[in-house]
Structure formats: structure tokens, C-alpha cells
């Protein structure tokens, strides 16, 4: 994973929202996962500062929180770009050439998997099957889904997010 360290800049409002959610959930069995998911929704990622707040609030060791965060692919330690590009590398997409799509995007953006462009605009990641196999190969940019992709279309698509 890339380590483009951007200083943590959480607001009081964000912290208040997280604390409120923790207060609601802290007595539910197995509440750590839903809390981390909520925290990522609030902050966009889970920097060590946020993990520390959660550990303190739940009275569990930080190491336990960190262990869970790093286990699951969806929890991000680094901020993502304003436009999150996700290329499906599930089997159905792969046999239809999504590997080439992914390589071309790395080349066009100049970043690797899990990284973010220096201007914070695009981040790139591979994902496993979003279930739109009928449209293979597929990629998503935030909420937009692009199906039946060819390598030639990619720079045109990126330009749409100028």
C-alpha cells in the first residue's frame, strides 16, 4: 500500500458524529466492524488518529482496532481520491480483458494499485466482482459504472472528470 502521508484534518463535527454513533452502538455485541464502517463513511478513511479515538472510546487496545482495520480490504489507511476508480478483476471481467484495462489506467494515471494521484483527484484500486458480470469488463468511477469497456475508451472517460 502506498504511503503518501497527508496530515490528518478531522473536524469537530466529524468527531461529534462518530462519538454519537459509538454511544449508540457500544453495547451491541460485535460492534467494532459497524463502527469502523461508520468512521470510514465520516472521514473517508481510517487514519491512526481515528483508530485511537475508537479504541479509547470502546476501551480496547489500539492494536486490536488496527488488526481489524488491516485485515479487511475495504478499510483504507490512506485517503482516497475525489474520484475513486475501481476496476473489476473478477473472473468474468478478467477473461474479457479487465487486466489490460487496469494496466492501461495505471499507465494513464501514473499510479499503482491502492494509490492516489498527487493532486488528490484520482485513486485507483482493483476490486473483486461487483456482480455486473453481464457487462464485463467493468469499472466504476465513484457511483458511475462503465461496462463493456475497451482500452481505447479510457482516456476519454478520465477526461470527463476534469
Amino acid at each position: 500500500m502506498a504511503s503518501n502521508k497527508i496530515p490528518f484534518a478531522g473536524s469537530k463535527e466529524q468527531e461529534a458524529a462518530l462519538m454519537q454513533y459509538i454511544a449508540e452502538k457500544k453495547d451491541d455485541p460485535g460492534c467494532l466492524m459497524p463502527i469502523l464502517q461508520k468512521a470510514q463513511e465520516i472521514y473517508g478513511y481510517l487514519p491512526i488518529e481515528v483508530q485511537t479515538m475508537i479504541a479509547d472510546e470502546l476501551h480496547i487496545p489500539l492494536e486490536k482496532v488496527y488488526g481489524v482495520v488491516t485485515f479487511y480490504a475495504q478499510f483504507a489507511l490512506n485517503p482516497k481520491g475525489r474520484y475513486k476508480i475501481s476496476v473489476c478483476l473478477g473472473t468474468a471481467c478478467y477473461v474479457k480483458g479487465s487486466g489490460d484495462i487496469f494496466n492501461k489506467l495505471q499507465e494513464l494515471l501514473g499510479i499503482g494499485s491502492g494509490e492516489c494521484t498527487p493532486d488528490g483527484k484520482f485513486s485507483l484500486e482493483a476490486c473483486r466482482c461487483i456482480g455486473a458480470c453481464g457487462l464485463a469488463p467493468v469499472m466504476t468511477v465513484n457511483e458511475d459504472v462503465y461496462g463493456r469497456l475497451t482500452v481505447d475508451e479510457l482516456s476519454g472517460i478520465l477526461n470527463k472528470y476534469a
Partner: protein
Amino acid sequence: MYRSHVLVCGGTGCTSSGSMQIMKTLQEEIDKNGLHDEVCVVQTGCHGLCALGPIMIIYPEATFYSMVKQEDIPEIVSEHLLKGRVVTRLVYNETVTDEGIKSLSDTEFYKHQHRVALRNCGVIDPENIEEYIGTGGYEALGKVLTEMTPDQVIQTLLDSGLRGRGGAGFPTGLKWKFAKANDADQKYVCCNADEGDPGAFMDRSVLEGDPHVVLEAMAIAGYAIGASQGYIYVRAEYPIAVARLEIAIQQAKEYGLLGKDIFGTGFDFDIGLRLGAGAFVCGEETALMTSIEGKRGEPRPRPPFPALKGLFQKPTILNNVETLANIPQIILNGPEWFASMGTEKSKGTKVFALGGKIHNTGLVEVPMGTTLRQVIEDIGGGIPNGKKFKAAQTGGPSGGCIPAEHFDVPIDYDNLISIGSMMGSGGLIVMDEDNCMVDIAKFFLEFTVDESCGKCTPCRIGTKRLYEMLDKITKGKGTLEDLDKMEELCYYIKENSLCGLGQTAPNPVLSTLRYFRDEYIAHVVDKKCPAGVCKALLSYVIDADKCRGCTLCARTCPNNAIEGKVKEPHIIRQDKCIKCGACMEKCRFGAISKK
């Protein structure tokens, strides 16, 4: 009363190709033509024929419009809905015959299917509980609570022969029986909706198209084993499914079909939703439960089995979505009805997600025992672009590749295992002559290396070593000795891994070694990739007879590897070629080929 119902598919496939905008435009056009009291637009779940999305069906005629575009909507509304004239040009061409439009159920794609688990998908509005109740929903729960004892429910499942649809095929009734036999102050019913196999999306379609069937079946399970709490563990990658489950749980609570004292029988059952966070291993039962507990989703040794010590150390059953979707029908129609479908040891139907190099990508549900040939050729419409079938991959990263020689084997749990694959959750990816089997094996190993949780050594290190050997072979550096070593390592990993992930991870390698050894040999001995996929083993060449010397390729080449004068045949300098293939794509005369 409406005179016409327009069903628009709101599954992930069709939504991805714009069905939500289509619904909006449709409603606007209907309003504009003053038809809002006569025509009702319904958002449904998946119809199965995802290749032709967005899909729209107009009832009562059951006219099937495929690949609908927003600009077609005004015409469909004014012609079909207002004047009653079918817009033939936009109708699914398989249904258009000389005698007029034939019924959808007579098309090749649908006529071989038998829908039990997908019964309501694409038919009802999944966000409206009354539509589910209108098709007999929650009747089975009522029957179970008022007319049957828990033992009778379990016996019914045992008699039906239903086996788990998540992959391993364990008899569902037996699982329930074990959990019931263990006394505890609290038991749990869990639903495995962490559909991790890439290329499988049947569970997602059930959740999106018929979420209440899962809730009803879980409540039935709760009654049978004596549990009052259920959890659905669903992939966060399925936002539509999550949203519809939330709505369904809310509605079921409002109608008193979940919660306290259901049907006034004193039976309490509640369901909570838990979202996964992108870990394939959490599809394994003990890992899934560990994840619900809020920990790293690592599997734990069995025994103790979850029926004794599962979630929060209490007796727990875990059933897959498709398994659950069969249960209310079994209760209502009886175990004999269910057992009348399928083969001797695999009863009922199975949903397959057809993907890859096949015409009709989408979801199909067929009786167990249907052959691969029927599924791929008759229902799937065969391989596009006149290419030759090479293999069908079933069971995802745990399964194997089935070659053409086994095309006529009836598909069921036991047959698939005997030919070196497995049912898995039902992903069926078709591959043609352009797919390299060594590359596919490497693809799956890359997946398992990535997804191995790291707890046990055989899986963590073994899969990595296996991947490295495959990588070496695709780069032309493998030896024949490597093939033997790989096989030995495969069996070692299978025998010594802790959970199902490691125990099945070598299957893609073993099955391709078994059926496509000649392709491995070609990579190792001849240093060639017969399918033309492995870049290190390819060379691009220009056919001097076909080259017109237009210079387009030379100008396209990013590494200036192509030389030649205008109007004279060009050549590619192999020492400079980076094998990107850009020249071949651009050549207008078909003069460049890869060998």
C-alpha cells in the same frame, strides 16, 4: 386497477446500464400522455438475461423489450402503451417470429429453466412486502408456526434432500438437526450473503429481487432450532441488496412478521444486518462468525462445529442465501415435490451465473442433472464470434476448469467433484480458445494469495510458492520438474490447510494440469503460449505480403520498434518490441499477428 404493468429491472446489471434513468423517463412520458391511472411502473429484481439489459417487460402481453435506451421510451409509451402496437424493432429478437411475438417462456434462454429460488425475481417489487405476500409469501412461516413442530420442520427438510447451495453441499436438514439437539440459552441463525466467488451473483440477485424470502426462511430456521436472533452477513460491495434488505426487515417488523410474538404464537425472532468489508475468507463459516463478532475474520479449527459452538460461542446455523430461498417453497409444496427434481443425490434446482465468453450472460436456474452442454449451448446461446469452447470454470477460486470432453456430464455436487471441480456457489465462467489455462490458474492463485488470511502456514506460504511457480512458467522460465513439484505442493496444501479456502485453493492448478497439461508443456518446453496471452512468450510479426507500408504502425509504436520505408513492408525489431499490441490494433490490413 391498472390495465398495464411495466416491469423495469432494477438489478445491479441493468442499473449499471442505466435502468434508473429509464424508469424516470418512463414515468414522465406516462404522465405526459395522461396514462398514470392506467399504467403502473414497477421496479423489480433481476430477470436473469443481464446481457440484454436494461430490460423492460410490459404486462399483460409480457412483451420483452431488451437493451432499452432512454431515447426509445417516448416511442414505446406512445406506440405500445397508448395505441397498443408493439414496437417490434425494440423487442428481444428471440421472441419475434413470423407468426408474431412469442412468449418469453418459449425462448431458448427461458424454456429450459425451472425457477424455484428465483421464483419472484423480476416478477415482484422487492421493496413492497405486499407483493411478496401476494405471491404466497410468509404463508410457509404461518404454516410452520401454527401447524408444525420444530422436529416436523427439520424432517421435512431432511426428506426434501436439500443440500447447502454455498458450495460444500452439506444436507441442510442435518445441520438444523444438530443445532436443535444442543441446548443453550441463546442460539443463532446466520445467513451467508458474503458472495465472494468472483463471477457469481445469484445470491445478490435473490437479495435484490426477493429479499423477504430470505427473512421468512431465517424465521422458519429460528423456530426449528430454537433461536430468536438472526444475522445476515452481506457484502458491502452490494449496495442495492443492502438497501433492499434494510427496507424488507423494516417492513416485516411493521407487519409483525419479525419481532415479538409472530402470528400471535409467542415465537420471537429478530434479524440484524452485518456488512462485510472485503475479505473473501469470511465466506468460510467460522471466519464469517468471527467477523460478526467484530474481530479479524480468521477461521477457527473445527470441531467444535458451529452447531455446538458458533457465533458468540453459542449453537449456530449458517445457511447460504440460495439455500434459504428454497425453504418456504419446500414447506408449502412438500418435500416430495422438491425431491422429484434433480438427480439421486442432488435434489432440486441450482442457479448458475453464466459469464465470460458466452452469448447470454446472466442468471439461469435449472434442475440438478442438467448437462453443461444444455446450459452453455441451449440456454447460454454458445460462444460468440465463432470461437471454439475451451473450458468452463465452476466453483470460483475453489473449483476447477472442465474441458469439452465432459460436456455431457449431468451437473450435480458429486459429478463435479469426480471431474476435479466443484459446484461452489454456482459461478460458471466460459472460456474460449483465446484464454490461456496457465494464465487462468495463475489468476486464481493470485486471488488466493491475496485473500489467504495468513493464519495457517500451508495456505499462506504454499499458495505464494505455487503462484511463483506459475508465474515462472508464464514467463517461459519453467521446467518440467516444476510441474511435478507443483502437483506435489498442491496436495500438500490441500491436506494441511485449516479451512476450506486453503483446502481448495490448489484446485484451479490441479484441474488445469489434469486437462490442459499440453498447454503447460507448450509453455515449458516450446516456450510458447498457444492462446497468445502470456506476453513474455509472444512475438509480434508483420506479414510482408499483407503490409502496404502505410507507416501507421510505426507511428503508433510507443518504443520506435517498427522500421520500414513508406509503401514498403515494415518489420518489428524484436529486441525493442515491448509487446504492447498497439500496432496490431491499429493495422488496417490485418498484416500484424502475434505468435
